[in-house]
């Protein structure tokens, strides 16, 4: 009994499986498998892209490291240059300052000399004037006696000397 296929169920089975097969084979499974395969392809593509990007990144890193190294060298060089330049400028400035100072000192010295000379000249003139004054006074006293004259002169000189000093 169980081994005899029933015509009714056979018909319904044929109908329903036929419909299920048609619908799913047309609109169901191909869509799903295609989408999953697309997604897998997409994932693979993304992985490849990521790998590429990674290698590029590594490359860029290397490059940047190289650039950094050269930059560091450059920096050291520049720093050295700057130091030497600074030293040179400082020493030059020192030299110049010293020369300037020297010049000024010389100038000052010359001026002092000049002033000293002026002062001496002045003293001389004063002495001359004094001498003239003394001579006047001596003359005015009518000096009779030579002795007295001499005494007078001495005294006057002393006076002047005292007043002078």
């Amino acid at each position, binding site marked *: *009994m*169980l*081994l*005899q*296929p*029933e*015509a*009714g*169920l*056979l*018909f*319904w*089975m*044929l109908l*329903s*499986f036929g*419909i*299920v*097969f048609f*619908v*799913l*084979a*047309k*609109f*169901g*499974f*191909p*869509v*799903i*498998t295609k*989408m*999953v395969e*697309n*997604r897998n392809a*997409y994932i693979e593509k993304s992985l490849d892209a990521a790998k590429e990007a990674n290698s590029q990144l590594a490359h860029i890193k290397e490059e940047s490291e190289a650039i950094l190294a050269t930059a560091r060298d450059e920096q050291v060089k520049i720093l050295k240059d700057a130091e030497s330049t600074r030293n040179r400028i400082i020493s030059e400035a020192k030299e110049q300052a010293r020369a300037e100072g020297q010049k000024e000192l010389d100038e000052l010295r010359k001026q002092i000399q000049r002033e000293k000379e002026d002062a001496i000249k002045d003293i001389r003139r004063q002495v001359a004037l004094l001498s003239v004054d003394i001579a006047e006074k001596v003359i005015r006293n009518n000096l009779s006696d030579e002795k007295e004259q001499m005494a007078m002169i001495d005294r006057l000189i002393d006076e002047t000397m005292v007043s002078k000093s």
Partner: protein
Amino acid sequence: MNSRLKYILAFICIFVLGVAPTFASSTESSEDVNVKELILDHVADAYEGHINILGLNATIPLPIIVKGENSGWQIFMSSNFHHGTAEHNGFYIASSGDYRGKIVEKNQAGEEVRPWDFSITKNTLGLLLSSVLLIVIILSMASWYKKHSKEDDPKVPKGFFGFMELFIMNVNDDIIKPCVGKNYKKFAPYLLTAFFFIFINNIMGLIPIFPFGANVTGNIAVTLVLALFTMVIVNVFGTKEYWKEIFWPEVPTWLKVPIPIMPAIEVVGILTKPFALMIRLFANILAGHSIVLGLVCLIFVTVQLGTAINTSMTIVSVVLTIFIDLVEILVAYIQAYVFTMLSAVFIGLAQVEPHHSHAEKH
């Protein structure tokens, strides 16, 4: 964890409580339990469905569509038969003979004959329900993919669809792809349909409440159609080389010229392959249902042996039924797997290329 355990317990309760009273109701009338008849009645088709949960015992009438020799097309509900005791418009359910349990009518000569019977039986209902369910699941999944998978931003489904994707791609990549070979994309839709059709029917058959534990894939008509589909696809899409190997195989000439021994064997092979598919699926699922029913019958068989034995046997029966039900879930998958795999292998064998290409490989 706790809630998951609760779900499992509830699931088992539904299984056990759903099965047990089915027999309580059907054996009430007679004291002697005829186990063989009972099992055969339950694995066979029926014109009405029974629902039994916790003492709720309902008979669901199903539509009868028949065309008799003299009365023409008739559509009415199976409740008109009053559980096989009454006659309706000349049709009645035979209680004995070749057509036991089927709708018959008397022809002019007074012999019992089968009318054209396209009734929505228990199995048909289960079949239609599973078909609709399968179509709904797969099409809603397909529409999800259409909505969410853009070329540049594909998404991965979560939850049930995620599981289904895993399942579908597993069948696609691990059964169909290696078994069919390089042409597999052409046949994948059929094989996937066959797999999930068988699987969902197997699983639905294990649910005793609704659709009444219909033994759909354990019915020879169903497996016959499935096997026919495989046979047609194998032979329609067979290559020239496949047909050459059938009618002019590379064997000593005396094996094929005066009497075509080898071609005859090969032609028989065309038929035996789908026949094996048909019987394997049918027998496995039928056996699974029979074992479950047999174990449940232990309870009723041991009633006469006293309360103590009956109680202990009831416990044994319930434990074994749960175990076998779980095994049957595994079998549901394995049989779908085997059917799909063998169909794929047969299709793959029919896709043979001429031999020189094989020779190059070696």
